[in-house]
């Protein structure tokens, strides 16, 4: 038995050492500096404004850079000065006046030429930026971006792009059509200027700490890939006196439970990683739980070739118990949608005025009667439908709920689950012919209903329904040319009616409007996720 004794003795000794060692290492040294610890949900794919397309990169960029335009409080989200101090819009001519006191972290001023050259870089076919299409509203941008560098010299096309810097502080833009939302669109990270000498010097590595040159409230102090980003206050920033945080530590935590554990353990004070549905009921009772309205719509699309009768589509759209879906499945304060355009968008309540979809669907007597009355009008109902969704637990639960709602109309629903990338390819457009219905969502690029409603034009790359209505396209075209916000809202209302209204074509069934959620410790003040999914940490402080 001696051997056994030694063995267990060894283990016990090892454990004792571990515990003793840990107890000795009491950490928690208190700093006078204001430090915010918050998780980010992914490794930012790129901190190059030209290449960034995702929300994590955009979030970091909004702290490091000074946006051209900032958006005011919701729901209006009016453009407010950022790097651009003032602007004039005359039809298709836009003039931007930059502030004179914005400096790069190397001390050089941020000039109009920086803006123009950065934009041309993002539009250039060589950079192959995914979001180059954000610039397609500018004269010549699409032509330059579509130039095949392997076959022709693209410099002539570059010279024709409608952006110029007549002096050090002025940017002139010529648009292909009057786009009333253009100024608001400038708040997007794609339009951020970059310091080109750094880009040229370091190439692909210019976004690494030490190389990167920025002009915002914070500087990138460290970036341990896939592990942690550290930002520190930029004391030279034009409004540095109002920036309260000195250091922001951002551990990268992709897993929802891991982030929640880190929050519970006190390692982070803000958790935006996302939450497991099973945790939400408990979290909702905490004062730390926050829900922010988003500009985004979760919807089901119909392949109108597979379900040709508009009355059947209306019956199916009316049958959905949206209230139950947001209350029991998504649980995070999402708003049942009565139309496609999110109501939180400027003019949204007018655009969606004629929304008629019953919130309780077939689970209320009125909703059931309404859905059945539409179904009764269908001459040749399609009784067997393939519903395609992508592979994620939340989507599957919603699909199962909708399957049961549609069953009450006598429709058999086959839920087909696909992996995300295959799914996207499968949906086209045009969608695979076996698609009866599918689920997708849309989050705003810029806060104008056009960004939502233009999805459903005949040649839109995001219209997976096969639905094409020339009248609708004409309305969209009219909206582009209508500068007056009120008049434009009326056009949007007509378009929305044509899409999801009582007499509309119902190629889609809107389900709910998105929200963002976060755990924020009460001592963290001023934390807010905007409807465009932006967070500005220069407004955040920590109370002692």
């Amino acid at each position, binding site marked *: 038995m001696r051997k*056994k004794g030694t063995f267990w003795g060894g283990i016990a000794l090892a454990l004792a050492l571990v*515990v003793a060692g840990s107890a000795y*290492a009491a950490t928690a040294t208190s700093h006078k500096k204001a430090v915010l610890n918050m998780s980010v949900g992914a490794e930012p794919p790129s901190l190059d404004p030209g290449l960034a397309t995702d929300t994590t990169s955009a979030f970091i960029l909004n702290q490091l850079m000074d946006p051209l335009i900032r958006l005011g409080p919701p729901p209006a989200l009016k453009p407010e000065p950022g790097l651009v101090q003032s602007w004039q819009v005359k039809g298709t001519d836009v003039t931007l006046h930059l502030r004179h006191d914005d400096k790069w972290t190397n001390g050089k001023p941020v000039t109009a030429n920086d803006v123009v050259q950065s934009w041309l870089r993002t539009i250039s076919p060589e950079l192959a930026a995914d979001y180059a299409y954000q610039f397609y509203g500018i004269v010549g941008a699409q032509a330059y971006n579509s130039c095949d*560098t392997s076959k022709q010299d693209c410099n002539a096309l570059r010279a024709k792009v409608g952006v110029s810097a007549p002096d050090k502080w002025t940017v002139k833009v010529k648009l292909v059509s009057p786009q009333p939302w253009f100024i608001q669109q400038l708040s997007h990270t794609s339009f951020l200027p970059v310091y080109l000498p750094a880009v040229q010097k370091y190439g692909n590595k210019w976004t690494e700490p030490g190389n990167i040159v920025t002009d915002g409230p914070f500087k990138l102090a460290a970036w341990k890939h896939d592990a942690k980003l550290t930002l520190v206050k930029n004391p030279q920033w034009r409004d540095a006196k109002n920036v309260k945080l000195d250091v922001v530590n951002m*551990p990268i935590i992709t897993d929802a*439970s891991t982030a929640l554990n880190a929050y519970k353990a006190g390692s982070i004070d803000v958790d935006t990683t996302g939450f497991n549905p099973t945790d939400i009921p408990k979290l909702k009772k905490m004062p730390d739980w926050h829900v922010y309205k988003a500009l985004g719509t979760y919807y089901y699309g119909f392949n109108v070739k597979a379900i040709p009768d508009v009355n059947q589509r209306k019956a199916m759209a009316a049958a959905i118990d949206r209230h139950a879906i947001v209350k029991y499945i998504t649980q995070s304060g999402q708003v049942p949608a009565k139309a496609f355009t999110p109501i939180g968008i400027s003019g949204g309540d007018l655009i969606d005025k004629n929304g008629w979809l019953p919130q309780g669907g077939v689970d209320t007597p009125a909703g059931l009667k309404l859905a059945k009355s539409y179904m009764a009008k269908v001459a040749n109902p399609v009784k067997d439908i393939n519903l395609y969704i992508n592979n994620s637990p939340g989507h599957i639960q919603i699909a199962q709920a909708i399957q049961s709602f549609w069953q009450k109309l006598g429709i058999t629903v086959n839920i087909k689950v696909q992996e995300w990338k*295959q799914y996207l390819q499968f949906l086209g457009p045009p969608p695979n012919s076996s698609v009866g219905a599918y689920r997708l969502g849309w989050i705003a690029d810029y806060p104008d209903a056009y960004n939502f409603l233009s999805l459903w034009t005949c040649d839109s790359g*995001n219209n997976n329904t096969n639905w094409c209505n020339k009248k609708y396209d004409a309305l969209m075209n009219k909206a582009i040319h209508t500068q007056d916000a009120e008049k434009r809202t009326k056009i949007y209302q007509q378009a929305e009616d044509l899409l999801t209204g009582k007499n509309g074509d119902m190629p889609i069934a809107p389900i709910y409007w998105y929200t963002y959620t976060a755990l924020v410790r009460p001592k963290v003040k001023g934390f807010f996720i905007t409807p465009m999914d932006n967070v500005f940490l220069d407004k955040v402080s920590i109370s002692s």
Partner: protein
Amino acid sequence: MPDGIPSPIFCPPLHPAYMAAFVVRRVFWTIPVILLVILLTFGMMRAIKGNPFRNTERNIPASIQKNLERKFHLDKPWYVQYALYVKGVFTYDLGPSMLQRNQTVNDIINEHFPVSVQLGVFAMIFAVVIGVPLGILAALRQNSLFDYLAMAFSNIGFAIPSFLTSTLFLYFFALKLGKYTGFPTFGWSGWRSWILPSIALGLGPMTYFARLVRGTMLETLQQDYIRTAKAKGLRWRRVVGVHVLRNSLIPAVTAAGPLLGYIITGSFIIETIFAIPGIGKYYVTSVSSRDYSVTMGITVLLSILIIIANLVVDILYGVLDPRTRDQRA
């Protein structure tokens, strides 16, 4: 023979010339294997559909798709892409990542592979240091309470998936007892953060080793030569130490090579749950995002790793079992 000195008949010295030839031949053989691995991965990644550049529901305009394909050489015929890739592998330039736009595959491997190796080696050390003695002791005390407990523990440990053990470890040792243990709930910085993930990852292999070693030990203990050794009047410690152990450990060594490969590549779940910046996470996400160059780069890297692990095992085999050495000579 005086007690305590290993019997010379069991380990004649390895012939250096033979060993060198053997290693050179094996290294040479890795080249066609790697070419095949590249071809298969290349083919399979293209066979699963999906656009590497489309990550969200936003469709990519055709002109932008073309720009991206040109930039990443996807507009070229497949054999040109393959040739370019093979050239890249042999010059250690694995190309740019299609998802992490400011990183090359070399960057990703250089930064994240060492972390996974570290985690894998710690887990392996844990598995061997605990698992092998556990198996030996259980075999020597067959049908004792210790044996039953050890085997029950092994079976449970083997059956519980690592995501569950990780979650439980985190909950109890980092969250509830964090004050005393000092274990962080996430990350990979400092020895305290290494312990829980290494144990969670090593638990499965540990129980595997314990059961394997116990099984082969029991088998060896029944052998005639053990009875002879006992009959000769050798001390029991010597019989076990020299005769039983050496022969029982061969299967464990055989298993260890591929297992190390598996541990390093299979740490995806542990890396995700503990937020460890290892390569496993990149490997899995690169497949779902169709980041071709990353998937290929890591696959090639891991095949080389497994080839090396097997090579080391074959060499160790020779040390432990002279018969295998003789056959090859």
